[in-house]
């Protein structure tokens, strides 16, 4: 009886030790959704945007490298495969005036000073919102870099995407269909009164 107890105790110890070793080998994955635990891509262009988190009610930080983009499945995988990386920082505020527009200006200055082609700069004086869209060829023939800086009264968005995805691809993935470009036949003239 004593030998049986010793045998059972040793088996339990072996199982516990094996279980502990097994848990140590399995990496602990982050379970944060809509927020990268550690940046995969080092994006110097928008370094320091963490300061806009102050006062924000909703913060979205996305940082996806090629290996992670290859895991995107479904009907979005085709567009995801076109991208080299995706870096997005979005800050939503409960009311206007929670961040300073002049704090956004240094990032616009970076785009204007570099080799960026800022083909869109829209400013609305009534609401104070401004949007800049810039592109430049990506190094090593990786497509192009596209940057979007959108400053609205209650929302601030920084987007940096590298790859071959088009604007239409991005809009389609976001659930907003691009305008129908197929030429429509002219409407028939109204019937003349008798």
């Amino acid at each position, binding site marked *: 009886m004593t030998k049986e107890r010793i045998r059972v105790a040793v088996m339990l110890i072996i199982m516990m030790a094996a279980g502990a070793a097994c848990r140590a080998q399995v990496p602990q994955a982050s379970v944060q959704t*809509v927020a990268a635990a550690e940046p995969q891509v080092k994006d110097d262009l928008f370094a320091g945007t963490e300061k806009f988190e102050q006062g924000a009610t909703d913060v979205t930080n996305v940082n996806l490298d090629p290996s992670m983009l290859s895991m995107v*499945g479904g009907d979005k995988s085709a567009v995801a495969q076109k991208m080299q990386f995706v870096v997005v920082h979005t800050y939503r505020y409960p009311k206007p005036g929670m961040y300073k527009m002049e704090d956004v200006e240094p990032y616009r200055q970076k785009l204007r000073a570099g080799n960026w082609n800022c083909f869109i700069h829209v400013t609305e004086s009534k609401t104070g919102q401004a949007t800049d869209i810039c592109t430049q060829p990506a190094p090593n023939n990786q497509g192009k870099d596209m940057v979007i800086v959108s400053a609205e009264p209650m929302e601030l*968005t920084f*987007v940096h995407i590298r790859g071959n995805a088009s604007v239409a691809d991005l809009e389609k993935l976001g659930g907003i269909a691009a305008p129908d470009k197929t030429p429509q036949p002219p409407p028939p003239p109204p019937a003349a009164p008798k």
Partner: protein
Amino acid sequence: MNDPRSISRGSQADDFEEQLKRSLTRVEAPEGFAARVLERAASERAVSLQPRFCRGFRLGWICAVAAILVLVALVANQVRVRRERARVAEIQAQFDAAMRATSGALRQTRVQLQRVGVNFGE
């Protein structure tokens, strides 16, 4: 009646009977005999009935440890698969959020440009 041969036969039978009685008389074992016999039996190595290759090993222990290790490996694999699936789902959610934010910014730009008669994206 007084035959010398008959007298001799009778004395021989008595002698034989005496010898037989002496031979079959119970003789007590010397002191400590039983203890010595038990001690000698315990010190002698028992003849093992196990096969030669199992002598010195506990086959049951080996089988038990092997079964435990196989079970642990199976459980670890299941845990790894589940973690991978969770990781993929997390990446999918991040990508969807990024695309929603991007398309939202593009939509705002499109609306603003359309107000001034510029069709963006065509």
